[in-house]
């Protein structure tokens, strides 16, 4: 069997910081913490009825977005499914605008039209937020197609859940991306469940990276709790894509701490409280702070100030969102058709 590049290892602390600058490491830590605290606030606001619809939180998966997206540049593209707050924050989308969007406000990322599942930011090359499972996987190949068509050296990161690998558009897109050598990095965020269905009850192969074998696609599998490990594997995929235009499939093993969406229980019949607690022991945010402490990059004091700083940002987001206006009535008829640029 075509073995994946990275052998699966027990989660471990990275002793080497991969030559990353202190500034970078701290920025990543802040980002992951922001993602975590931001969404804890979302959970509250959802409970209070201020956020509506389906709201899928990224808690527990933060290392995946941070580690992969920073393996690319600002002009690389990111596209994902409905569990999109984390990737959006990592891609630099203004958290104020995200919060305003969630609160159904005109100042939101899509003027209150898309909501939690459909964050978009053209300036930041953040291409959504897509709620039909698998529907965005071909779009990513299309973005990569455009990159290659224009002879650019960008890449497109495309995130999907483990459950999404069973749908037809996954198959069609991966075949095309490999056949046409399109610079897309497909990232399976394997959090072990698609809603309440575990991987082994949904996929004939439990090792999701094996699906790459059907497309002769470069592939890797790794534990996704250690942001540095994620970064390392993603960076290799990005470099390969920039050099060859070839895609990769990365299976990243992760875990979601909350229910599938905020209208679902944290653990239903499908997973136990114990399992969730066990998984929380390798919390990516804590693991990263532990690494940084072990490497003497930060100390407990830093962590305290960081918490305060992030708390303030989240509060500002909420304030901004709450004080923003609703979309005006006439917005209903806008953005249905685009007026000619010519």
């Amino acid at each position: 069997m075509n073995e994946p590049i990275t052998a699966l290892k027990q989660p471990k602390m990275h002793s080497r910081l991969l030559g990353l600058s202190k500034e970078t490491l701290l920025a990543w830590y802040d980002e992951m913490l922001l993602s975590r605290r931001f969404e804890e606030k979302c959970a509250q606001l959802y409970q209070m009825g201020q956020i509506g619809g389906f709201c899928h939180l990224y808690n527990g998966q933060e290392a995946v977005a941070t580690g992969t997206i920073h393996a690319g540049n600002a002009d690389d593209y990111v596209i994902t499914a409905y569990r999109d707050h984390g990737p959006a924050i990592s891609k630099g989308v203004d958290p104020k605008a995200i919060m305003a969007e969630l609160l159904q406000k005109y100042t939101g990322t899509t003027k209150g039209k898309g909501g939690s599942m459909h964050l978009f930011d053209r300036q930041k090359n953040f291409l959504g937020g897509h709620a039909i499972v698998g529907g965005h996987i071909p779009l990513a190949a299309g973005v990569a197609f455009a990159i290659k068509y224009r002879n650019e050296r960008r890449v497109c990161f495309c995130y999907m859940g483990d459950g999404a690998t069973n749908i037809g558009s996954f198959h069609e897109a991966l075949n095309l991306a490999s056949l046409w050598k399109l610079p897309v990095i497909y990232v399976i965020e394997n959090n072990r469940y698609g809603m309440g269905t575990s991987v082994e009850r949904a996929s004939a192969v439990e090792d999701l990276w094996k699906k790459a074998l059907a497309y002769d696609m470069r592939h890797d599998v790794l534990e996704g709790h250690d942001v540095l490990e994620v970064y390392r594997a993603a960076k290799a995929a990005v470099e390969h894509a920039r050099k060859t235009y070839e895609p990769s499939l990365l299976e990243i093993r992760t875990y979601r701490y909350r229910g599938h969406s905020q209208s679902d229980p944290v653990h239903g019949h499908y997973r136990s409280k114990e399992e969730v607690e066990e998984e929380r022991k390798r919390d990516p945010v804590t693991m990263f702070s532990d690494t940084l402490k072990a490497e003497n990059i930060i100390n407990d004091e830093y962590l305290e100030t960081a918490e305060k700083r992030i708390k303030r940002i989240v509060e500002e987001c909420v304030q901004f969102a709450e004080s923003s206006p609703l979309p005006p009535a006439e917005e209903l008829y806008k953005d249905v058709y685009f007026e000619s640029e010519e």
Partner: protein
Amino acid sequence: MATVSMREALRQAIDEEMARDDRVFLMGEEVAQYQGAYKVSQGLLQKYGEKRILDTPIAEAGFAGIGVGAAMVGLRPIVEFMTWNFSLVAYDQIVNNAAKMLSMSGGNFHVPIVFRGPGGAAHNLGATHSQALESIYAHFPGLKVVMPSNCEDAKGLLKTSIRDENPVIFIESEVMYGEKGDIPDGEYTTPLGVGKIRREGKDVTIVSWSKILAHVATKAVDQLAQEGIDVELIDPRTIRPMDMDLIVESVKKTNRLVIVEEGWPFAGVGAQISHDVMKRAFDYLDAPIERVTQEDVPLPYAHNLEIASLPSVEKVVRAVKNVLYVS
């Protein structure tokens, strides 16, 4: 008489039909272990086991097709779409394989299958998750389309649909699952293709169905009654076949028609009802037929826009007054 929720009424229908006929089975995402995304199948896994209550991967085209194949050789599948929005990735399986098998095979194979799940908007779910898709299914000969507006019909129509020898598109409503209603005691079924006059009236006919009938049209009718306007409210219950006789008879009496539906206007179900009534009751119409539909836009997330887009009591009242030439 018993008072049950809509989800319980539907569950009873599935349960009774599964008990009655062991060819019937249920499959879909989260219908088994999770007890249904909206708990319609609660308890059924425990009662019927994994053989007959099956969780599927997220592969709508795949499991819809499995349903059609199983139906061809004699089983009677109930395929749940978590919502009808997700049926769009299985559209080919439904409108080609299910709808045309009997005809293309010249009578060799028929497809007794029910595709069911909630349709239409709930709250704040955004454009892809809020679609009322009845017209794009009812367009196809070979399919039947059923949309109950209350618990009694939900149970009776679902039982009939499961017994039907043809593919049935059974569209429920997510926001009605928790709503309660009375259902008759004991075994009963409700025929497809037979509409129901929900309220007799003489001034105007309103045709509406499913949630929009229950949540919007009914309220508008009450409000209009207080203003002295006597509306006859018709619930076709089945979109295809549509009980046009009932509607036409009503319009011949009231001479005015308003059609209220959740879908988009262009080539919606209401357009068809309008055309048929215009043809069959041309000389009886005292005013142009009015339609109240969703605005012709993808449904936005923000609740204020969502409300503005969907049919409302206010819009229905206005339409009724229009056909009465009052303001």
